[in-house]
């Protein structure tokens, strides 16, 4: 990973991701916070591409920048206008302290550990290998994931359904 393009792309995308994540914390309007969150998700998709993870990058754009963000926006517009602030609770200082501690610890471990680095090139294609793994070695978790998604979808529908729409009552 020595060519200039990758290095520049990494620094630009990391800066974009981290700055927009910080903006989610700072901005006072929840809708603006979601917009910055989407920007952060797109930045992470770019970082996946610099890691030659094309399938995961596309999935990230589709599911996070697309589906999850729209879900969050829907939840915001379905809740009261008065609650669209983005303020902190009284736990603000302990949370800040804990977050700094976690960042410091993880960063220290990342730098200090002697990782077993391999010198292979980036992946040529990932989608076919991932697909084969999902339907071969990991077929049981794959099937369980589909059941989980079905249950989550049914649960979400049942939870937000108005009481009066129940048939036969």
């Amino acid at each position: 990973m020595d060519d200039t393009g990758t290095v520049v792309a990494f620094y630009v995308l990391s800066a974009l991701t981290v700055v927009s994540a910080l903006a989610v914390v700072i901005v006072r309007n929840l809708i603006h916070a979601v917009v910055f969150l989407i920007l952060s998700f797109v930045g992470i998709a770019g970082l996946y591409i610099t890691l030659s993870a094309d399938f995961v990058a596309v999935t990230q754009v589709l599911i996070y920048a697309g589906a999850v963000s729209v879900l969050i926006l829907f939840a915001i517009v379905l809740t009261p206008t008065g609650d669209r602030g983005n303020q902190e609770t009284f736990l603000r200082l302990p949370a800040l302290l804990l977050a700094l501690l976690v960042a410091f610890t993880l960063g220290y471990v990342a730098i200090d550990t002697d990782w077993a680095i391999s010198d292979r090139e980036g992946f040529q294609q990932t989608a076919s290998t991932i697909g084969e793994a999902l339907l071969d070695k990991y077929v049981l978790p794959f099937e369980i994931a589909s059941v989980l998604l079905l249950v989550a979808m049914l649960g979400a529908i049942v939870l937000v359904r108005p009481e009066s729409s129940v048939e036969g009552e």
Partner: protein
Amino acid sequence: MSVDLEHYLIVGAVLFSIGLYLALGKRNFIGVLMGIELMFNAVNLTFVAFSRFVQSPNPLVGHVFVVFVITVAAAEAATALALAVLLYRVRDTINIDRIDLLKW
């Protein structure tokens, strides 16, 4: 100048901490959920970075795991946001410091 595993791990650590601060410190229920999503993303970034750089007989297993994490995160988001809407319907607020029924 080159980009190594450590760079990605540090970006992941910073994102995770920002997500942790959002999840612990925000007053709005949806703000807390956004923090949790950010933490999922930081963990996924770390998985993909390890998958790219570290020695392994089949390195793409990290990507498979990321696909599962994204699936579970999507299911979690759908259910939790339905809960947010329901919470507003029952309690007329989604401010988590005003939901104190269990507090004595």
